[in-house]
Every structure is written in structure tokens, then in C-alpha cells.
């Protein structure tokens, strides 16, 4: 039971469509793993299943040795698995501090007595320090992603799941955000699972890749190996080139 996360035979069907097919993998404490796959490969569905937002059709998920597949999302968070959303979902009408404060009140963060101090610290940690009173409505996309990460960190996670943190960002923003994520992994002793379909940013960041296509895991390994894997080249890289050409 040294594995932090153990996913076993997870399948999700929507009517006739199988979004995730028999997915199995494990994460060890301190891992920095990425899920790679073109749009529609089932990455976000898998995330939703892991975090309790969606029940799997079949399969089991163990986190810290405990079965979490029937738990409500907030319970999963309080077991130590926090997520961010691909489309950021801040609390509109609240300022940055209040947005993070909400998560500081989760049962898992009960050790943090001074909630506002903790929220301010988190904002500073993700590079939004001193901007407590700013409304979220006017925040650029890159900062919203940072806010999402601060909110997830407030629940003191062991495992952080990042859903396409780089989507829609410019290259300099991506570099800064990648640095932040790397630092969190190193300094906070976080295990990170990250979804991305952009190859370049991804390969430089993670130490292990789970490649998906059409809901199936087609390869697992270090990035150097994955880029050479024939199945991945055939199924994934070909597709993205097409997608880029048609975009």
C-alpha cells in the first residue's frame, strides 16, 4: 500500500460512448505525472471520476489505501485530493482573498487557525500577493489559473490534480506557471497529476507520462520513451498535427 493513488479498471460509459475504458495506473508519493492525449481522449472525464464529480460505470479507486469511488467531491478533497478546473470557476462577486478563504474553511484546513493569514500566504505563494481586494471578474486568465491553484492548496492536498493549466495561455505565462508548479512539487512535497494536450510544455515538466487515446491508456513511461513509442506517435502525434493544420 505504498501507492498514493491506485486506479483499477475504471470504465465510464455515456450511453453507447465509452469515454474511459478500463483505465488502470498507480501514483506514488512525490510523483509528477502527466496524462497526455488529444481532445476527447477522456482525460477530463477520468479527472472527474477520480475527484468524485462523476461515478465510474465500473472499476475502483483507492487513495491512501482507502476506497474513494463512492465519495462526494468535497469528501474526496478532505481526504487530500484537490483539483483545479480547466475552465476556471472562481466565485464571482468576491475578491481574491475571499475566493481562497472559502477553501481555507474546509475541514481539512482546520489546523490553520488564522484563515485570512493563511489565505494571504497562499495568494503570495502562487504569485498573487498583495492583491487581496481585487475582484476576480477583471482577472486575466493566467492569474485565474493561479487562483485555482491557491484554492486547491488551501485544502492542504497530498495529491494535486491540474486540469489543463496551460490552456489558452501565452508562452511567457506558460513558462511562469510551469515554474510555479515545479516549485510547488519540490517545496511542498506535493504529488501532482496534470492533464495537458500540448506536448512541448508537458514533456519538459513531468517525469512520467500516461498516454491516452479514445478513452484507453495506450502507454505509460518517462517522457523520453513516450515520444518514441510507436502507438503514441501513430495515435496521438499524428492527430495533433492534423488538428494544428486544420485549426
Amino acid at each position, binding site marked *: 500500500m505504498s501507492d498514493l493513488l491506485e486506479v483499477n479498471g475504471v470504465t465510464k460509459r455515456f450511453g453507447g460512448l465509452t469515454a474511459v475504458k478500463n483505465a488502470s495506473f498507480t501514483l506514488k508519493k512525490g510523483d509528477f505525472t502527466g496524462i497526455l492525449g488529444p481532445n476527447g481522449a477522456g482525460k477530463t472525464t477520468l479527472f472527474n471520476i477520480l*475527484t*468524485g*464529480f462523476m461515478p465510474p460505470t465500473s472499476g475502483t479507486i483507492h487513495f491512501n489505501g482507502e476506497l474513494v469511488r463512492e465519495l*462526494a*467531491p*468535497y469528501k474526496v*478533497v*478532505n481526504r487530500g485530493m*484537490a*483539483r*483545479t*478546473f480547466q475552465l476556471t*470557476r*472562481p*466565485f*464571482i*462577486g*468576491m475578491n481574491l482573498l*475571499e475566493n481562497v*478563504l*472559502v*477553501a481555507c*474553511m*474546509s*475541514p*481539512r*484546513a482546520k489546523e490553520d487557525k488564522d*484563515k485570512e493569514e493563511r489565505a494571504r500566504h497562499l495568494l503570495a505563494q502562487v504569485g498573487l500577493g498583495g492583491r487581496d481586494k481585487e475582484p476576480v471578474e477583471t482577472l486575466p486568465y493566467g492569474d485565474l489559473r493561479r487562483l485555482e491553484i491557491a*484554492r*486547491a492548496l*488551501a*485544502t492542504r492536498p497530498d495529491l494535486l490534480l491540474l486540469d489543463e493549466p496551460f490552456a489558452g495561455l501565452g508562452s511567457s505565462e506558460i513558462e511562469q506557471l510551469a515554474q510555479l508548479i515545479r516549485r510547488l512539487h519540490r517545496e511542498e512535497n506535493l504529488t501532482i497529476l496534470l492533464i495537458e494536450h500540448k506536448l512541448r510544455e508537458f514533456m519538459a515538466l513531468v517525469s512520467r507520462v500516461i498516454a491516452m487515446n479514445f478513452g484507453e491508456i495506450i502507454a505509460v513511461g518517462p517522457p523520453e520513451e513516450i515520444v518514441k513509442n510507436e502507438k503514441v506517435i501513430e495515435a496521438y502525434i499524428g492527430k495533433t498535427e492534423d488538428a494544428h493544420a486544420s485549426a
Partner: protein
Amino acid sequence: MKRIAPIDIIGGIIVVAILAAIPAVTGSNYLTGVLTVCVIYGIWASSWDFMSGLTGRENFGHSLFIGAGAYTAGFLSSLWAANPWYSLPLAVVVAVAFAVLVGFPTLRLRGPYFALAMLSTSAILQRLCLIFWEYTGGEEGIYGLDPLMKSPLYYYWFALGILVITVIVLTLLARSHWGLLLRAIRGDEATCQAAGINVTFYKIVSLMISAAFAGLGGALYAHYQLQVSPPLFSVIVSITVIIMVYVGGIGSIYGAAVAAILLTLLTEMLRGFGEYRLWIYTLTLMLILFFLPNGLIAPLWRRMTERLR
């Protein structure tokens, strides 16, 4: 915790002082009665605002709690002839029990289930009052409740005091971390879940708090009218309360209380217009809500005192 501006406290004291002084100065028993109803509506409106205004889950059956509180007072007097003062705490308990009964199964669901369940439960209780007329007195209801106080003026001051306590308690809660969570639920329930917050728990407890004050107000109303009848459960009562909150400015608590007082006064003042009364009342409401979708009282007050904050 959000700070309450000194100007808000000063404004509140002035308004309460004026409200307390009016009947004492004029000495009119009629006005004292009208104002008693005004402040009771204030309790109902601000308690609605606390749950529904903050979490955004509209409660279309606040009359359920109001009627439950009032009938508790009625039964206590007709069946057990108990000390009338017991009816206030007991009304709170009964209203909170109804909040758990309806809130527990429906507040965990998304969509309109909660609003519909509140609406239909209040309608069902109104029917039950007619069906079990042997106990409830049917259409006529229960008569001859004991007044809590002999002097109508003292009773008015007592009700005003309860309103002040209601507004203070609910405002402090709304501005606390607890209130922040309720506003977050209004914003995005999925994000709340992702932040590790048990959304259902907070919604149910806030409904219980809301019901407690509404039930208390119901019992106060019963001991003012000295009679309870099925229309207390009616949809019109619920809708009236909701309109008051919207005119007051949703989520502000004090706005709802002030709007409730002003609108109740308005309906009384329009009595002279006879059958045109409802026309004028409705038209006024439509104009306010059309031109001021964020409400009248709270936005106006914030604007007036902007420089003093």
C-alpha cells in the same frame, strides 16, 4: 469577518429610535397595530433573505415556517392552555423541525426541487388545516389566544426588539466566514465542492436558522392577532415576503427589514383608495423592480453613505 461601518450602526440606531418613538408620540392605537405588523413582516423578510438571499436557493414557501410558528402558538393556547410565553421558543423548535424535514431531502439536489418542495409543503399544510378542522378550527382557525402583554405599545416595542435582534444576529452571521460560504454556494456549488466544503450541510443549517426566526415571527403574529387561520400558510404570504426582500436589495438583511416595514405601511396608507389599492401597490412594485433590479433600500443607503465609509 467583514467590518460593519460606523455609519451603518448610526443609521440603524436612528431608524430604530424613530420607529420606537412614532406610536409613543402619536398615541394612536391604530398606528401601533400597523407598525407591529410592519416589524413582524420585517422579521419574516430578513429571515428569508438570510437563507435564500445569500445562497441563491429561492424558498417559495416561507409561509410554511410562519404558519408553523403561528399554529404552534394557537395549539398551545387551545389544546393545552399553557403559559403563552412558551409559544415563542416552541414555535422556533417546530419551524426548525419543518426546515429539516423539507430541506434534508431537497437541498442536496440541484435545480428547482427545493423551491417546489417548500411551495407545495406550505400548500399542503394549508389544506391539512381545513381537513382536520376539528383540531384546527378549519377556515376560522383558532381564536382567543392570550396576548403576551396587556399594552399594545409594549408589545410593539417587544416585537421591534425581536426584529432588531434578528437583523443584528443575521447580519453578523452573513458577514462572518459562515456567510462567506453561503455566498460562495450562491456563486458556484461545484467550486465549493472542489474547495472541500459540504454544500448541503451549510444550506440545511442556514435554512434552519432562517426558519427559526420566521417561526418566531409567526408566533409573534399569532399573539398580536390573538387568532390563527389557514391563510397564514398561503403562497401570497411567501410571495409578499420575497417581494419585500427584492425591493430591499437581496442579501443585505437590513434592506429586507426596512422594505418590509415601508411596503406594509404603503398597503395600509393605500386603504383610502379602496379597490384601486392593489393596482397602485403592484404598479409601484413593478416600477421599482423594473428600474432598480438590484432593489431600492440597500443600494440607496450605500450610495447615500458612500463618502462616510
